[in-house]
């Protein structure tokens, strides 16, 4: 066998066998050891900032949005699935989407087409692991890299609809994709300037330090302009009414998602809620004091997680409320808002923060 470049020794097979059997015999104890050492990260990945939280939030938010908006529209909403409450309707819809055929349009780039919905819902989920839920409940604690890293990951999100719209080879998808490009660029620049102002005021790019700096007063008070801009930015980034311009149903069928069917469409719907979740949590962390709040019953970590969740729920309900009050803006009006109103105001906000810093207030 030496002519093949393989040097097979006599005891090789026996050694390998021993190694495999050793692992197999010790598997239960090794597993327990692995779980004991990695208990906290595993819980974090699976439960709190991770999978269960994202999915449960998406299910509750979809149900709440349907039921709540139905009341505003003078109807009852989902009714028959789940004993008149419509809770099971979400699962029924998921099953339906899962069972459906994925229709593949002719002359399209399948790899791009199929990969984008999956990426578009997982990338914002990756950004979410940076959010601190307590000083010792951060899944990915990278110190002063955390705020830039959030924008780096979330900044990739608009790229994916553009690829998806291009790959689908459909005129509506194409127009929708370019609307995404226009909209995100005009919205993200004021957002980054606002985030920079927050970092300057806190004196750090570390999200944990930003939260700690808000113990006495939330940044929403001294930086009210930035607070308002970032609030609009959250709605824009998560493509919700009145800024759901890229998927405007009455104009563009469903924008860049037109050609998606079955579970791929389900993924794009999921992405909407994951984005919503990631940006709302970021908004709370930057302006509404993050996890800060009175400690309940001496359990610091639990009460911090509770306060962040409570703020999150209130904000989500408020943003969903907006949907039944406003029509949709046109793209040029949105760009006008982004470039001529939000960007100058963001710079003004930055100037105010710098002035406060120079005067020594912060």
């Amino acid at each position, binding site marked *: 066998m030496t002519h093949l470049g393989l040097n097979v020794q006599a005891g090789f097979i026996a050694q390998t066998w021993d190694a495999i059997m050793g692992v197999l015999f010790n598997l239960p104890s090794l597993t327990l050891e692995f779980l004991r050492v990695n208990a906290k990260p595993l819980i974090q990945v699976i439960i709190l900032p991770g999978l269960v939280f994202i999915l449960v939030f998406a299910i509750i938010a979809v149900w709440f949005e349907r039921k709540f908006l139905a009341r505003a529209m003078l109807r009852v909403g989902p009714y028959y699935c789940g004993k008149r409450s419509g809770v099971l309707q979400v699962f029924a819809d998921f099953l339906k989407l899962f069972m459906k055929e994925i229709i593949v349009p002719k002359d399209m780039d399948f790899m791009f087409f199929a990969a984008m919905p999956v990426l578009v819902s997982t990338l914002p989920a990756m950004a979410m692991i940076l959010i601190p839920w307590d000083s010792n409940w951060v899944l990915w604690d990278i110190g002063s890299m955390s705020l830039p890293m959030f924008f780096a990951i979330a900044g990739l999100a608009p790229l994916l609809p553009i690829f998806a719209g291009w790959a689908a080879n459909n005129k509506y998808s194409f127009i929708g994709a370019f609307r995404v490009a226009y909209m995100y660029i005009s919205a993200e620049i004021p957002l980054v300037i606002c985030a920079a102002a927050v970092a300057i005021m806190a004196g750090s790019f570390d999200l944990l330090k930003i939260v700690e700096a808000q113990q006495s007063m939330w940044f929403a008070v001294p930086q009210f302009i930035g607070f308002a801009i970032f609030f609009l930015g959250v709605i824009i980034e998560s493509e919700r009414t*009145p800024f759901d311009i890229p998927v405007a*149903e009455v*104009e563009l069928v469903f924008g860049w998602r037109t050609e998606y069917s079955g579970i791929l469409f389900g993924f794009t719907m999921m992405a909407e809620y994951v984005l919503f979740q990631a940006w709302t949590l970021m908004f709370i962390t930057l302006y509404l004091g993050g996890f800060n709040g009175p400690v309940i019953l001496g359990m610091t970590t639990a009460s911090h997680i509770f306060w962040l969740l409570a703020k999150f729920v209130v904000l989500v309900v408020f943003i969903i409320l907006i949907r039944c*009050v406003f029509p949709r803006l*046109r793209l040029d009006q949105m760009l006008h808002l982004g470039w001529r109103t939000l960007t100058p105001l963001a710079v003004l906000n930055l100037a105010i923060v710098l002035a406060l810093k120079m005067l020594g207030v912060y």
Partner: protein
Amino acid sequence: MTEPMIKPDVMRISWGPQHPMSGQTRILLDVDGEKVHKIIADLGFTHRGIEKILENRTFFQGIIPIERMVMADTANIGLSYIMAIEKALGIEVPERANWIRSLVCEMARINSHLYAFGLQAESTGYFPAVFLWTTTDRTVLLDLFEELTGARWSYNFFMPGGVHKDLPEGFEAKVIKGVEYLRRRFEDYWVAMVENAVFETRCDGLAVLKPEDAIRLGATGPVLRGSGVPMDTRKDEPYAAYGDLNFDVITEPACDVMARTKVRYKEIGESLKIMEQVANEIPGGEISTKTSPFVRPKQSAEVMSRVETARGEIGIHMFTEAAPNPYRVKINSPTLRNMYVFERMAELSEILMADIPVVINSIDPWYLDSDR
């Protein structure tokens, strides 16, 4: 339909018939980015040959197919055909029947305008509140229709010589109650929709149609009155009881989409006023002059009747000979006239892709009407 050549650097988009908002029509758009260069309306997807059907039926049988032209506004469409028959046959209508006709026509007008109003809201992406509010509030009118005519939607209530049934007992009080309810709701619509900041941004100064253009292109109904031209067949050439009723012709000077929306909004107010007047002041007497369903004219005649429907003026041009069915009926439908105006909108003012549903719903199209 022959499709004209398109310019280079321009993308042609088929807006409909497979589209969530288009309805049963196809509109070809030449777009450069978001800007629309040219609009081509490709009508005829729902052509049912109503004019031909009318030739093969007796005068009375024709009432049923012609009401299918606009289901939201059956009373006004049906009245135009019935008035043509009455002119051709020389039938007199009692005064009370005329007042009941006016009442039903105004109720149908509100019904149709409510639908248009809801679609206008939906076309700006304002789906949640207003579209379903208007749909829900229509049930008030539908209940009144049901009590009066026996049907909620297609009530073949008018007939040559009068109406089928007299008002039921206590109907006037119910009309007044319905009018009060709708007035209360309309205050909500004004706040929720017309004065909504984002709706104003979307609709103000959009698709401006100057009065001279509106007249030149043959606009009619709320589109014409939204351009500031006070023209209403109910005032210009009173039919039914409109000569005795007190109401105003609504015009708006702004000439844009918002003006057309406001014209509809205020016209509903005028219609409510008419309903109230009819309920309070309706004269007594007969409700119809007896006419045989198998009536046939003695000699040939050529008649024309004009009625102001919710979408504008409908014209029925009818030739009759000594036969139990009309020789030829030509229908000049309001949606078709307004669609010509819509096709020119991109040349008259700048329209973006996102404005297309808003602009087309501002003319309140009903494609079954334009295709006949």
